[in-house]
Structure formats: structure tokens, C-alpha cells
């Protein structure tokens, strides 16, 4: 309905293959970016920025990383948090040990370190598939935080491996207030999301999906399975690594290895299941959903209890969260395995064909 595409025709492949071929989409995305860059910093409170928007963006980036691996390349991982930890600790150490290194460079190096570790744990994927691979990534999930705790060198000899992120400073500009941190995260995430979108619409993205959908056919057509999977692990871990660094530098400020636990990995997995496996946008939708849901639940349960005059035992909210998450995962897998992104896509199709149903 909102889409009026008649008269939008393409006279070149460049126009046909552009990022958003439909005019209305381009307008929509630009509007969204304008809101995120201008309106949000002007209007949002510090609570919104620090407790909701920044974690949302950081998790979206991590989910994006996992989605590249799981959604696009079809390799299940339960070790997302571990790769985030690698990114965070590596970035910390690069900052710490190489004087004068620009923060963005150490983020990139952190991502690269994470990518290297990712490739290492991705090696078994050459021989095994499906949930067998989940075990390999679980090994990373349990091993890496342990290592980071035990080898205190990683945390500059702090107790129990806690690190405190150095201030984020680029060309003398310090990103210290919530608004500034938010903008920093927003720019990093937007750029990386764009890069991800570009990858999935290029040869590597097609190779990932080919390996995911039908590996024998992919091999026969000349796609190197091994290379493709390892690149997926590398790119995915890079994204998770940078997300980990942002998690430490822009969100929490100080983190400990045990914070990057299996629970966090699961949360990110849930984001892509609910948001949409194999969709860049799904990563964002899922991250938003999983970030907002606990807040929403908390409000509903707390206010509901007050309203009903009940005295809820402590921990009810977090237990309710488990129940709701679990139920939602099952619900989505049964009803819409491709998640919110697919729902959005269906809605978009409907809008494009409106008033026709199909």
C-alpha cells in the first residue's frame, strides 16, 4: 500500500542490484538513520541510551555475527559469548600494551583475534555438521572464559579476570557521555551491518547460502566448502569480537570473563531465532525484541503484582523470562521459523501487492 513501485524501472544492472532497489525502502532507511543519528540523541534519556539502546546495538552486532555463521552459512554455534570475550580482552590488551594505538585499530585487531580463534574452533566443521558442531563451539564457550580467568596476564593481573575498559578517544574526542557512546556504537554497528549486507549479496554470501542449502551441489559447482565455512567462522567471529569490545568499552565499562557465559550465547542465539535466521534485519529485530522483552516483562509483572496486591517472590521476573523466552523460541520455530524478519518480509510483500493478498 505504501509501496508505489509502478514507474520504478531499472535501466542498468547497477541500479537493479543496488542495496535498496525500491525507492520507498531507500526513503525508509534514510529516515530511520536520520532518526537514529539526530532525533534519538536529542530526545532519549540517559536511561534509554545506556540501558536499552546501547545494549540493543551491541547485541544486534553480535547477533549479526552469529547470523552470518548460523543463518547464512548454516553452522550452529553455541559459543558466541566466548568469541565476544576474545574480542573484548584482545582489544583491551592491544590498547594496554601498544602505546598510542588508535582505539578503532585495537577494536579491529580484537575482531581479528577473535576471527583467528573462531577459525580454530571452526576447523571441526569441516568434518562434522549440525549439533555435533555445537559441541565444538561449546568447547570454546567453556574453555575460553576459563583461560581468561586463569591466565591473569589477559586481564593485566586483575583479580578474577576483571578488566576495565580504557576511555574511548578518537582524534582527541572522548566518547564518555551516554549520547556520545551511543553515537559511537551506532556508527560502528551501522557500518558493519552495511558491510555484512554487502557480503551476503556478493559471491561469498551466495557461497555461504549454497553450502548451507546443499553442500554437495555447492562443491560440484566449484565452491570450496572448507574455505567457505572457515571464512564464515572468521567473519562471524570478527563481528562477535567487535561486539564484545563494544560490550566492554561502550556498554558495561568493565567486564569479567564469566560474564561471557553460555547464557549470553543462548541469548544471542535466541535473538536470531526470533529475529530471523539468515537475515541482516532479523538480527536487529531479534536484538530489539530480546533486549526489550525483559524490561517489558518486569514492568508488567511488577505493576501487575502491585495492582493485584500480590507479593511476588524475588526472581520471579527472571524465571518468567526463561519461560517466555523458551515458549517464544518454540513458538517461532513452529509457526514462523524465519522469525520476525520473515513476518516483516511478508508484511512488505503484502504492502507491495496491496490490495491483493498475493
Amino acid at each position: 500500500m505504501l509501496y508505489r513501485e509502478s514507474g520504478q524501472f531499472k535501466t542498468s544492472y547497477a541500479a537493479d542490484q543496488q542495496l535498496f532497489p525500491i525507492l520507498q525502502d531507500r526513503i525508509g532507511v534514510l529516515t530511520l538513520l536520520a532518526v537514529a543519528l539526530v532525533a534519538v540523541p536529542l530526545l532519549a534519556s540517559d536511561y534509554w541510551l545506556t540501558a536499552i539502546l546501547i545494549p540493543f546495538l551491541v547485541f544486534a552486532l553480535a547477533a549479526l555475527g552469529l547470523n552470518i555463521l548460523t543463518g547464512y552459512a548454516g553452522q550452529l554455534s553455541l559459543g558466541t559469548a566466548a568469541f565476544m570475550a576474545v574480542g573484548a580482552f584482545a582489544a583491551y590488551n592491544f590498547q594496554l600494551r601498544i602505546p598510542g594505538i588508535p582505539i578503532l585499530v585495537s577494536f579491529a585487531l580484537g575482531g581479528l583475534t577473535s576471527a583467528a580463534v573462531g577459525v580454530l574452533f571452526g576447523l571441526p566443521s569441516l568434518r562434522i555438521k549440525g549439533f555435533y558442531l555445537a559441541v565444538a563451539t561449546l568447547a570454546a564457550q567453556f574453555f575460553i572464559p576459563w583461560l581468561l580467568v586463569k591466565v591473569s596476564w589477559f586481564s593485566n593481573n586483575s583479580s578474577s579476570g576483571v578488566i576495565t575498559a580504557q576511555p574511548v578517544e578518537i582524534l582527541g574526542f572522548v566518547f564518555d557521555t551516554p549520547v556520545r557512546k551511543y553515537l559511537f556504537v551506532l556508527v560502528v554497528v551501522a557500518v558493519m551491518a552495511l558491510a555484512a549486507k554487502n557480503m551476503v549479496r556478493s559471491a561469498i554470501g551466495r557461497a555461504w547460502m549454497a553450502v548451507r542449502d546443499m553442500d554437495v551441489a555447492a562443491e560440484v559447482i566449484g565452491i570450496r566448502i572448507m574455505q567457505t565455512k572457515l571464512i564464515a567462522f572468521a567473519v562471524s567471529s570478527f563481528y562477535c569480537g567487535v561486539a564484545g569490545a563494544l560490550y566492554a568499552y561502550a556498554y558495561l565499562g568493565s567486564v569479567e570473563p564469566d560474564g561471557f557465559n553460555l547464557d549470553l550465547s543462548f541469548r544471542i542465539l535466541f535473538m536470531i531465532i526470533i529475529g530471523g535466521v539468515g537475515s541482516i534485519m532479523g538480527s536487529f529485530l531479534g536484538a530489539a525484541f530480546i533486549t526489550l522483552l525483559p524490561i517489558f516483562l518486569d514492568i508488567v509483572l511488577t505493576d501487575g503484582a502491585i495492582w493485584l496486591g500480590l507479593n511476588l517472590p524475588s526472581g520471579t521476573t527472571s524465571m518468567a523470562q526463561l519461560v517466555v523466552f523458551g515458549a517464544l523460541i518454540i513458538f517461532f520455530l513452529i509457526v514462523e521459523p524465519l522469525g520476525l524478519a520473515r513476518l516483516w518480509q511478508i508484511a512488505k510483500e503484502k504492502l507491495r501487492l496491496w490490495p491483493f493478498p498475493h
Partner: protein
Amino acid sequence: MQFFFEVLIGGLLAGVMYSLVALGFVLIYKASGVFNFAQGAMVFLAALTFVGLQEKFGLPLWGAFPLTLGVMVLLGIGIERVVLRPLVNQPQITLFMATIGLAFFLEGVAQLVWGTEVRRLDLGLQDEPIESVMERFNLLISKFDLVAALVAGLLVAVLAVFFNKTRIGRALRAVADDHQAALAVGIPLKQIWAIVWSVAGFVALVAGLLWGARNGVQFALTFVALKALPVLILGGFESVLGAIVGGLIIGASEKLAEVYLPSLMSDFLLKHYDISINLAGIEGWFAYMLALVFLLVRPEGLFGERHIDRV
């Protein structure tokens, strides 16, 4: 040397417990091709329900057991209905993720109903050394562990008979081999699945009682299930025997590694690199790393069958 045996036996006995949990996995995997990540949650739920019933209604052991079993059977049937049936013919990985969701759901429900505190579970067994063994071999072997091992052994034997001798068991194996064919010859797939999930619930209950009695009934029980993963990778997903052997191997090697490896490694590092680190806590990841290495060498597991990808 004596200490080594003590560690080894302790590990093997713990391994029996892993086997017990892994058994639940194997059952479900064989019948429905689902890797049930929620098995740990089921163990937790079973133990918690058992303790909860005991506490709340003051039920005796023999009273709480059948009631809990009833709950677990209903749960099994419910899972088949609500989760499995709509997801039939979906990729394995989807089913796997669904069971992750299920795990969260069950953990949440269990704690919402019974609260979050750690409970003590008393089966009337003491976790004390068996004196006769102590005297004769000078080995410290817990009475509790031994009983647990015996129970586990018994359970395995019963299941083996169930699988090989009964009609349902044979049907189950047929289902595991080929869903379509099983349907074609008139095996009621849905009922079979409900039965299997119920049996898995029963196994979870037994495992939950034993683990709960030893470590207290708490959320950490769910992690036991995670340990079952490497067990299965070693033993093969489709082999009951594999689950047992895998469990023993993991249990024993984990304990041995925990006791010997850190000091060895620390010494090594100290001697050659002058680095002083305390590497305790290997238990947390050792089993996975072992499984990982194993996967690279023999992906089908010790007792699994090698599948040829037909094109």
C-alpha cells in the same frame, strides 16, 4: 597409585551418572532423531518436583516417586504433542533449537513453581566410604556412588531388554531406522514418540534423584545435561552401550585430568617459561575438548554407524 585408583573409581562412578543422563538423550534420539537439549532441564524438573512434593505435602519417598513419574510422563506426552508433532520433518537443527527453547521453558517453570533455593534431597543413602572395601583394598569408595552405579546399571539392563525384546522396543528401533518406512508399515509414530518421551522422563527422574541427592537439587543440575553431550559424541548418538561407555570414559578422564593435569601443566609452565598459573577447574571444559578432538578423529563416535551421503 592408590590415590589414582580412588580418583579413577570416583570418576567412573560419576561417569555412571553421566551415562544415565546420556541414556535419556539416546532414547529420544533413536526414536525421533531429536537431540534433546532439554534432557538436563527434565532432570532438574524431575528432582525439583520430587523434592517439592515431599516438602509441600510431606510425602514419603514411595509416595513422591510415582507422583513425580506421573508428572514426567504427562510432560513427555505434552512435549510430543506441543513441540514435536508440529515440527515433524523439520531439519534436525531446528528441532535441536526447539529443545533449547524447551530447556529454558522447563527450567523457568520448575523454578516458578518450586522456587529457586537449593534443596536437599535425602534418599536415605549416606555418602560415606564402604568400610569393607576400605579395609580390604584400602580404597575410598562411597556407598552412595556404588548404589547409584548399581541403579544405573539396572536401568540400562532394563532398557536393553525393553529395546530388544519387547514389541514396542522393536517398533522403536524400526522408527529410528526410517520414519517413512515405519509409518508405511503401520507403526503409530506419534504414540511411539509419546512413549519414548515418557521413558526419557523416567530416566530423567532417576538421574535427577541420584544427582540431586548427591549435590543438592539446584539449577546447576541442568549443566549435567551439557556434560552428556560429549558423552554422546564419544559413544555415538544411537548407541545405548555407547552412552554407558562414553559416560564412564568422560567421567574417569575428567576426574583424572582435573586431579593431575593442572599441576602437571603448571609445573611445566613454571619450569620452562617461568610462568606461575593456577590451572584448576579443567573439569569445566575438559570433556568438551576431549569430544572435540574425538570428533576430528572419529566423527561417528565409538559405537555409531558411519553414514554415507548418497547423492
